[in-house]
């Protein structure tokens, strides 16, 4: 079963955000990982780059598809999960844990007010 941890926030482009203080950890949801199938490559930005909410920040490739990654909030990149360059399959096996993508310093926390709760996201993807 695909899981959607309650402590996270979700957006309709299938990224999640874990907010701790003014830092947001961003990745893709279990639904997205399942749709993509085996992830083979994740192209991520560099530390120090800034992105607006909903801006494209990277690309994810699986055996069968290629998709853009979009910011669920604006901010400056403070960390990138380098492990994904050698183990992109972590996105499939542990999307909310070791398969995280970037951490950003939130530019405007209020942007996340529009993000979905776990239950609302689950309803969105089941439809």
């Amino acid at each position, binding site marked *: 079963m695909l899981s959607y941890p309650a402590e996270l926030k979700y957006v309709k482009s299938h990224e999640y955000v874990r907010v701790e203080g003014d830092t947001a950890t961003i990745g893709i949801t279990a639904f997205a990982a399942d749709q993509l199938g085996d992830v083979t*490559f994740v192209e991520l930005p560099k530390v120090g780059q800034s992105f607006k909410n909903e801006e494209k920040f990277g690309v994810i490739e*699986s*055996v*069968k598809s290629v998709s853009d990654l979009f910011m669920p909030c604006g901010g400056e990149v403070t960390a990138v999960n380098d492990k994904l360059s050698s183990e992109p399959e972590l996105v499939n096996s542990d999307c909310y844990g070791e398969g995280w993508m970037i951490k950003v310093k939130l530019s405007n926390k209020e942007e996340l007010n529009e993000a979905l709760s776990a239950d609302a996201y689950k309803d969105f993807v089941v439809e």
Partner: protein
Amino acid sequence: MVVTALKETPLAAVHKSLGARMVEFGGWNMPVRYKSDIQEHQAVRNKVGLFDVSHMGEFLVSGDDAHDFVQYMIANDVNRLSKPNMALYTQFVNEEGGTVDDLIVYRRENDFLLVVNASNMEKDWNWVQKHAGKYKNLNLKNVSDDTALLALQGPKAVQLLSDVVGKDLSGLPSFSYSQEKADGLEISFGRTGYTGEDGFEIFSATGDAEKLWNLLLAKGEKYGIEPCGLGARDTLRLEAGLPLYGHELDDQTGPLEAGLGWSVKLEKGDFIGRDKLKAQKENGVPKQCVCLRSEGKALPRQGYEVWSGGKQVGVVTSGSTGIHVGYPIAFAYVPPELAKEGNQLEIKIRDNMVVAHVVRRPWYKRAK
């Protein structure tokens, strides 16, 4: 708005119960994967995999003129099937030298069985009927709806099918055709496939398909069998350098351009498209299909531009990660002068020009 329901194979319920992800393919609702494309691909390379390919079309050609008709329709030489129970790979070529479809022709005791692509089935059926008129003693029958087709592929396929029919099949030649019983079910099979591995494509009546599928999965458990979807089928055929209609072959692209010259027999006598193919053979092809190995990790995909010398020279027709070989691979069409092995080209992947080398076909070849 016209809503056309997708066609279902006789195994639709089985795929659902196995939790397959289904996709539309050529008008059919087909399993793309059960668990993982990579796992299914490697199961076929290392053990054995089972595919439902019942969407493919089957035509029977019989009557005294069947041999001459088939010979006129295909680019390969039907006389290579010197006795019944043999098969060959070939194409229907159109008058302009493009490809109507690629197919396998089986010579059986009393007829020929033609296995065609699902997405082209109607076009192919119209094509064979259109050319049947001048043959007096010819019967054409489209048996696609009555026929299920399973592909059992991988190094353990021969042991598994031998277990299932209770007979050692290891001595069967490649592209042979046999009829056997499997737990009371009437089956027939060619030692053929579309993965680059040893294996069989197994025909049964539609109503027996589920029993046959379950029998193969159950008996295959000790060999590590995996049900495999169209995702793995595509990455396997690509890695093995096998063309896919709609990618490397289409109505405008012929077998010589696709690198299938080994299957075109210009000297056998007349057949549809022969003049155009002969001219291509003598004067050169307008474009050539090449095997590319690209650098980095970004994957080439169908439609991506191929560049050389600062300009676009071609286009990728299929691309993926070579799951077994371990690097990105692509088929592309380029001008023949750029098709030489070792030549360096570039593929435009998003905003980057990625270096790609022309390599020998295929990327993966199994050890004999």
